[in-house]
């Protein structure tokens, strides 16, 4: 099953199970079913709880927050994650702050879904990975879809936090197969540890390198790991957290302590990155065991060009990760 179908199934199940759940977004009702078809079939089955909206990202995130404030649960799809910029005020100054600024805990069960990332030739304003711009906002939790984490459980986890959450969903990842039963492919296996996926080649030896990356990087990280193993006999473990912020490294600390080299990869542009935040958390804990500073891989400090050959130069490729490990 592809990741897109799996997420769609999870949304169906959520709407089936909980009459308080509402889904809002632009062009999400049938027959169109959303720009990436993640909401396909939802409106046919759940009618008025699945609402196609005007082009008003700020407005619909506000409406979602209002539903959540009053007792419902809301999922808002931003057609292209880039447009979440238009909802920044609602996320920063209303939804996240309301959880604490009234002097007591106010639940705001709101999930803002953001199809994210490039490699599809959509150009500078439809290809970005904006995770870093939402880091460090008290009361706002950031998650990212991966092929390893079960989407049903992920949605349940986000709602259980009672905080507004932004869920980043890599657009190319939508087309990839989900990984189940601990199997990734002929070479790699995985296990889930406290919200993290640990992906490893067969064998329990401590790896030469630990790669940390959000779910959207999975295909490129695996390709790099395969090359490194076969061509250079370098073993890597890939760690993929479901929650990017606030990040809890505790469940994987044991794995990290065994690695001399740590590389953090992400799709956002360079500067003020998620990786810098990961390093901030890990350096004090791992200073003694690291062979050198944590290495950061990100897209270039650049807008994302449209033409495929130009886009490739800017965005993270498997080779970018491979070179960072070998450096």
């Amino acid at each position, binding site marked *: 099953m592809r990741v897109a179908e799996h997420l769609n199934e999870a949304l169906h199940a959520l709407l089936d199970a909980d009459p308080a759940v509402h889904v809002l977004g632009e062009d999400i009702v049938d027959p169109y079913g959303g720009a990436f078809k993640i909401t396909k079939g939802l409106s046919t089955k759940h009618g008025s709880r699945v609402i196609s*909206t*005007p082009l008003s990202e700020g407005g*619909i995130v506000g*409406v979602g927050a209002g539903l959540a*404030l*009053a007792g419902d649960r*809301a999922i808002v799809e931003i057609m292209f994650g880039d447009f979440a910029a238009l909802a920044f005020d609602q996320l920063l*100054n209303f939804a996240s702050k309301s959880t604490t600024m*009234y*002097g007591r805990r106010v639940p705001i069960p709101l999930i803002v879904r953001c199809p994210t990332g490039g490699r599809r030739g959509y150009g500078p304003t439809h290809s970005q990975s904006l995770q870093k711009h939402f880091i460090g906002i008290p009361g706002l939790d950031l998650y990212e879809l991966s092929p390893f984490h079960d989407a049903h459980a992920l949605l349940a986890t986000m709602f259980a936090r009672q905080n507004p959450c932004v869920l980043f969903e890599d657009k190319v990842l939508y087309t990839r197969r989900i990984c189940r039963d601990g199997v990734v492919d002929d070479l790699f296996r995985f296990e889930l540890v406290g919200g993290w996926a640990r992906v490893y080649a067969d064998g329990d030896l401590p790896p030469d390198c630990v790669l940390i990356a959000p779910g959207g990087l999975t295909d490129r990280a695996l390709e790099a790991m395969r090359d490194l193993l076969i061509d250079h006999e370098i073993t890597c473990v890939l760690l993929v957290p479901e929650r990017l912020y606030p990040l809890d490294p505790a469940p994987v600390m044991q794995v990290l302590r065994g690695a001399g080299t740590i590389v953090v990869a992400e799709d956002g542009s360079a500067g003020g990155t998620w990786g810098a935040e990961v390093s901030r958390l890990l350096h004090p804990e791992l200073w003694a065991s690291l062979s050198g500073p944590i290495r950061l891989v990100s897209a270039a400090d650049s807008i994302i060009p449209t033409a495929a050959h130009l886009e490739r130069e800017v965005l993270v490729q498997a080779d970018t990760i491979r070179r960072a490990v070998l450096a």
Partner: protein
Amino acid sequence: MIGAIQERVRALTPVADADLGRMLRIRHFERALLRLFERGQLNGTTHTCLGQEHVPVAVSGLLDPDDYVFSNHRGHGHFLARHDEPHALLAEIMGRAGAVCNGVGGSQHVYHERFLSTGVQGESLPVAVGVALRLKRVTPGRLACAYIGDGTWGEGSVYEALNMAQLWRAPLLVVVEHNRIAQSTPTTAQLSGSIAGRAAGFGVLHHRIESVDVNVIRAELAPLAAVVRSEFRPVVAEIAVHRAGPHSKGDDTRTPEELREAAEGDWHPRYAEAFPEQFARLDEEQRAFIARMVDDVLIRPASEWERP
């Protein structure tokens, strides 16, 4: 000129003690805040609603306990008209024990029962649409009432919200306190066209009320609120008011002429002239009550907040 003023005074309808008392309670509350500021006893900032107290008193008479109220930066009157808890509000503003939000939100971020204020212009309207949609589904007949100013109409969120409210038939009553000035900028310099025209653009019902008479405002609002409740549709009720005080504390840059005009539009002297005995009695009652309230809050210990 005197003749004209007397004409307007005569036009006021007899007012209930409860309404005039509440208007005066809010007036004394706001004046007390400004005094506390002058004495350096208040931290931060505040926006008083001097000259606009009668609006929330008129509106609150039409609200059900299950309705939601969304307020803005100038929200003390909105709160006190809805919840007669001046101790809790002053404690909130001063960060003292018994504060309605433990002193975390302060003057412009208050959430109490179904009253919620936020500090960013226009931000509450889409949220109010979401709440209104839930009310329509779960408790039909209940509404979300959102107070905004004329300055708020510069924000795009207002238009996104009006569009959705009308499209989706959200029971939303938008009360616009049109005080002719946005902080220091006259409305004529920041708003093109009209609020009526803007509402019309979305097919949203609009009604403008010119009176300072609390009974007249309530009577004109009543059928509008009924439409919101029974027909599940938004209404914009625009009420002409005068901001008799500064935007915040000592930041009034209006000319003496403009200030005089604002003072003439204030409900306070008109009610004082029209109903001298009733006014004097209630005014003294509220003055004394607020003075005692301030003394009570001043001796309270600091509020406590367990940071999550």
